[in-house]
């Protein structure tokens, strides 16, 4: 970490997070929205690693492992929901399923 300035690395994490956010807000295909959420989670984890290596503490990496496990659980449930959505509505467009039942 001695060579790489912290603010450059944090800027990278912020840019990646912004790209993921733009993806979630602009795309209407639900698979691509889920991928954008993955980019955002990755950027958040990167910020944890940067902070952890800035203060030479292992806590940042511990948090990254937590984020990793959370992303895995989130993706499995999200993809199961996508499969169910496609079987029932035959579409992946989130605008077409804006009615709740019950």
């Amino acid at each position: 970490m001695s060579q790489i300035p912290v603010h450059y690395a944090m800027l990278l994490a912020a840019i990646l997070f912004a790209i993921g956010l733009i993806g979630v807000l602009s795309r209407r295909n639900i698979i691509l929205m889920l991928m954008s959420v993955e980019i955002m989670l990755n950027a958040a984890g990167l910020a944890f690693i940067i902070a952890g290596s800035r203060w030479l503490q292992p806590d940042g990496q511990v948090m990254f492992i937590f984020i990793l496990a959370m992303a895995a659980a989130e993706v499995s449930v999200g993809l199961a929901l996508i499969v169910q959505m496609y079987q029932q509505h035959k579409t992946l467009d989130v605008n077409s399923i804006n009615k709740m039942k019950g």
Partner: protein
Amino acid sequence: MMILFLITAFVAIAASILAITRTNAVHALLNLIVSFIAIAIILFLLGAPFIAALEVVVYAGAIMVLFIFVIMMLNVGAETEEKKSKWLSPKIWIGPAILSLVLFLELTYVVLSESEILLQSSQITPKEVGISLFTQYILGIELVAIMLMAGIIGAYHISRVKRKVKHRFLKEE
């Protein structure tokens, strides 16, 4: 070190932008894998080699395979058969391939000049992470385990196909 970081950051940003602008989900996935590998190299440069390996194995490996399985299961679009000849056209894979090549050259450079780069950077070893994980954060790791279990059961329950026919003798004709 700094120039390596800048190149990798550029590759990560370019691959992420390409990933969210594709219309085909598989093409987006290709770019997303490049983005994850670029972030893994950044983690490596930041002195977290264990996390970098975990990023490649879990994100670029397991989660992406999950995405690919779901895209294959859905088989989106009836025109998939017609597109089969276009799948391997160079226009699709040339972008991710160039970005991957940049990352590969960079990794080769890092490995060949190991003594200068890796020993200078202050690393946090996997041992410290493990000790911290299983002493200070033991409650957190247990909660994560419970959450993964809930994720598995939830995914199974949600994606289960509801059976219309209860029994073969009770079948409604």
